[in-house]
């Protein structure tokens, strides 16, 4: 037994815009199904930044300090007595939201909708930007040895993209427009190609992001022009939607729209760019209430669905997609920081520079 008591450094959000690193006790397993993971890499998500800056997302409100971070990979260092799927020493990608397993949503397979989910870095639950993290073993997925810890940390956003495509019920040979060429948009474009899409178009107001998307996975990209002052915004969005259809030869419209920005003009343009009976999936989060072209959605019999987090099968699929190279996760990481530099990493993401894509923070060594 070590004579030095081990500590667990954590990166904690105390209150809005107030973060620091502090030392806590090493967390203990809660039951025989738990494992303790030594975190190796953590990606930063827009939601982490949002809690830091605004202290809330919807009804999730920061009322007490929380450790940030939820896109992580690490190595198992301790297992509960009933754990069978992983062992000490295994390197894993962590699925950060563990549901209650008992409510109607859990029982019907929609565990992403469980109201009692313990989700890392969603208040009031602590996240993964700490040396050690405790999680149920079935929410840890072993990664093969050729996958780096950074790849492992990219499994989470990849799983988000997998779920978006699952909700969209993508089929081979479809035409797909993805609004947003940030990490999620880029991953959705890559996933659509994996599904065998005939044509994938990426849309973003940032030319440099669309340049990246064209190299990454998209067959074509589109940078909408800003509407002239005084123009009716919905008419302007309609014009954008129709221009995309014309420019890329999409006939009556795209089979599938994946909306990964949450930006009102993109939401509107997406509705106008869909074909009759097309599928529109809302994945991006922006303004809570937007002006929505509901009449168009009705007349064209669109199939409109929301997508949130991930469900059973998304994580194993994501590990496989990254491990096999079908999804190039590493290409999305542009900046790397040590654990002690976590606040700087967050500051960088907050700036929203075009050339900053996925930022990862190394775990405590």
């Amino acid at each position, binding site marked *: 037994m070590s004579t030095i008591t081990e500590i667990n450094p954590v990166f904690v959000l105390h209150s809005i815009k107030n973060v620091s690193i502090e030392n806590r006790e090493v967390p203990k397993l809660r039951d025989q199904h738990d494992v303790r993971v030594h975190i190796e890499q953590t990606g930063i998500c827009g939601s982490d930044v949002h809690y830091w800056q605004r202290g809330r997302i919807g009804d999730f409100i920061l009322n007490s300090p929380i450790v940030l971070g939820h896109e992580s990979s690490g190595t198992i260092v301790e297992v509960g007595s009933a754990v069978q799927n992983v062992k000490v020493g295994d390197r894993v990608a962590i699925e950060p939201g563990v549901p209650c397993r008992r409510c109607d949503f859990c029982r019907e397979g929609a*565990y992403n909708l469980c109201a009692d989910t313990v989700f890392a870095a969603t208040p009031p639950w602590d996240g993964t930007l700490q040396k050690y993290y405790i999680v149920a073993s079935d929410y840890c997925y072993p990664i093969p040895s050729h996958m780096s810890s950074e790849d492992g940390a990219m499994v989470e956003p990849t799983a988000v993209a997998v779920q978006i495509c699952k909700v969209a019920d993508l089929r081979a040979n479809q035409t797909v427009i993805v609004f947003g060429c940030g990490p999620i948009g880029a991953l959705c474009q890559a996933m659509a190609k994996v599904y065998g899409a005939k044509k994938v178009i990426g849309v973003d107001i940032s030319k440099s992001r669309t340049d990246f998307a064209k190299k990454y996975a998209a067959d074509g990209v589109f940078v909408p022009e800003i509407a002239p002052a005084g123009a009716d915004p919905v008419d302007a969005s309609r014009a954008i939607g129709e221009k995309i259809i014309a420019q890329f030869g999409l006939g009556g419209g795209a089979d599938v729209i994946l909306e990964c920005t949450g930006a009102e003009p993109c939401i509107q343009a997406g509705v106008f760019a869909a074909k009759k009976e097309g599928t529109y999936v809302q994945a991006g989060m922006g303004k809570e209430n937007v002006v929505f072209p509901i009449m168009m959605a009705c007349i064209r019999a669109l199939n409109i669905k929301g997508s949130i987090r991930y469900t059973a099968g998304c994580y194993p699929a994501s590990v496989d997609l990254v491990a096999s190279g079908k999804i190039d996760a590493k290409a999305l990481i542009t900046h790397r920081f040590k654990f002690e530099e976590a606040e700087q990493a967050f500051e960088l993401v907050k700036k929203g520079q075009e050339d900053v894509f996925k930022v990862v923070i190394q775990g405590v060594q």
Partner: protein
Amino acid sequence: MATDTEFGDLSNLSFVLNKPSDVTFETKPKPTIQSPYDVLVKVNYTGICGSDVHYWVHGAIGDFVVKDPMVLGHESSGTVLKVGDKVASVKVGDRVALEPGTPCRRCTPCLSGHYNLCNEMKFAATPPYDGTLTGLWCSPEDFCYKLPEHVSLEEGALVEPLAVAVHIVKQAEVKPGQTVVVMGAGPVGLLCCAVAKAYGASKIVSVDIQPSRLEFNETFAATHTFTPERVSAEENAARLLKETDMPGGADAVIDASGAEPSIQTSIHVVRRGGIYVQGGMGKPDITFPIVALCVKEVTCKGSFRYSSGDYKLAVELVASGKVDVNKLITGKVKFEDAEQAFSDVKAGKGIKILIKGPNEKET
């Protein structure tokens, strides 16, 4: 922890299958609350299922083999005696229908909404797990369904087979105005007809070789009945469709018999593009009209037990009066007479016989 002293006035006499045709009554240790989500229940009524009888006669169903003595029974209702700290949906004194299978909640089938297919399912009276023909039973809260005041405990014991029927009809995707044929008019077949009716089916054809069962179903849920003859499946199918005026075939056909001729007839009865659901269990391997399935683009699905939402819907169907399960109860016997009840079920007597729990007072 007080085990036998708590609820000391209650008996935990249990009906135990030792090996085929060898059943005994034994007092077993009383179960206790193990987790804050547990509910401890006094068993009031238990219905007998064909599977219970099958284990009693053969000692096995497929790969499930009775190796050690096992308590029988799984179709039960009860009264809540004690609840764990986190239980909110039921309280002491509530009457409940019991869902007898507890899944692991962690395997892929469980997490993807198919807990009936759980890799580690612990199902009452499927070896090696004890069943509900006993005094006290411990259940997780989410597998215990409160019965409304006007629903009796006897009706509560019918919720299990009704949930089986609900699951089958959901698999069959029955929609209002559709035509449905159900092969077999045993309890599950009868209840499938009743659920199909609740789902708005316009024609419900009940098929059986026993005239008394068909006669019963005429006043229970079927719109038409049919007795097959010893002719080919195609000939039986043709006559059925003619007599029920379904020239194109039925939208959905459900097999609740497991009988090879019924399964064959089903594929010739279902319409092109229709759905066929295998609910009944008989011979494991049969001669199947596979070319007809292919050419007619039939969707064929299995149905096993019940999963999310089925029990809740079953309770609702009883509570709202849409399915009158009372009509299926043809006998109620004392716990001590359980073996005779099993013999009667095996001999095909009645429809559903209920065995009172060992703590039921004689009125």
